[in-house]
């Protein structure tokens, strides 16, 4: 989905254009036996907790991830958030968000070693 191989699997990679196609590719992978890369939040949920991040790299990476998440969420929203198993109930309570994170993580975190290894 991007041709910038040196940046593949990082936040520096350009945003994917065909967002539904990326999600469809993720749905088609054998996730039971593959690593599922995911960007998630890391937060302080202790009573009275208030995490304030000063780490420059974390702030820069987070800003880029937020920008990309906006685009991928909108890209899926535009096609009605196609479900992998439309007849099954959503047990997560956040299917649309998770699908947008799946696209984000597939494009900007998942290891890119395709074609380099035979097993």
């Amino acid at each position, binding site marked *: 989905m991007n041709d910038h191989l040196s940046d593949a*699997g*990082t936040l520096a990679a350009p945003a994917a254009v065909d967002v539904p196609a990326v999600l469809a590719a993720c749905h088609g992978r054998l*996730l*039971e*036996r*593959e*690593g*599922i*890369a*995911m*960007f*998630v*939040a*890391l*937060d*302080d*949920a*202790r009573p009275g*907790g208030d*995490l*304030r*991040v*000063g*780490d420059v*790299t*974390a*702030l820069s*990476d*987070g*800003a880029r*991830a*937020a920008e990309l*998440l*906006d685009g991928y*969420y909108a890209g899926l929203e535009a096609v009605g958030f196609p479900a992998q198993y439309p007849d099954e109930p959503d*047990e*997560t*309570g*956040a299917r*649309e*968000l*998770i699908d*947008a*994170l799946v696209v984000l993580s597939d494009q900007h*975190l*998942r*290891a*890119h*070693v395709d074609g*380099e*290894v*035979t*097993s």
Partner: protein
Amino acid sequence: MSILTKDYQRQAFADGKLLRIVNWHNTPESQRGVLKAELSWYLDHYVPLLPEDLDRFTDTGEWHLPKPGFIPVFYDSYLNNATVAAPVCDELGLTAWFFPTTAILDVPPEEQSAYAEKHDFTILDEERDQAAYAMTWDDLAVIAKRHVIAAHTANHAAAKDIVTPDDVEREITAPIRALTELTGVAPAAFAFLYGTPPDPATPAGRAVLDSGIRYATTNTAYLRIKD
């Protein structure tokens, strides 16, 4: 704001509260080379994170690491996590996090197939001929010497199915106690099936929040819940 909303997630990222994780379930022998290549790729780009690193970040807002961090995670007590994933991680000098479901560790091999059918434990076609599909407590003890152990209920239970005091004891309290006895330390994190966040208004959520465990692991966040 619920953590299960796009607005929360976006704001958390924009505020620098971003974590990279990679979740595995089955790690069959046929994928050993792929797993090693992928973990090597991650190691080239990121630093494996320990619970202490998350503690420091959530206390100070600073990572203090030479590269961004990531957490390699292996779920559900698959035997191939003990025979493939852990050895590959050891070979690479990488510390991973393991979230075992504990009940299957006591299920005799000849009963594991039937157990798997009822508890979302996937037996791969390529492993159907194996004598056993799950690791043992002894396997987990070996893994615990070099890796982080977290809790994932006894029977791969969803939060919504943990209702009574007996449910809480069986799926939350007892697994945490057993893993603590095995490793000498409380599990670093707890995750329900389906990655549900712990809701303090439910028996299951309240039990996790009161368990003394430091992190609640959900589909969309790692939440520091205890000092």
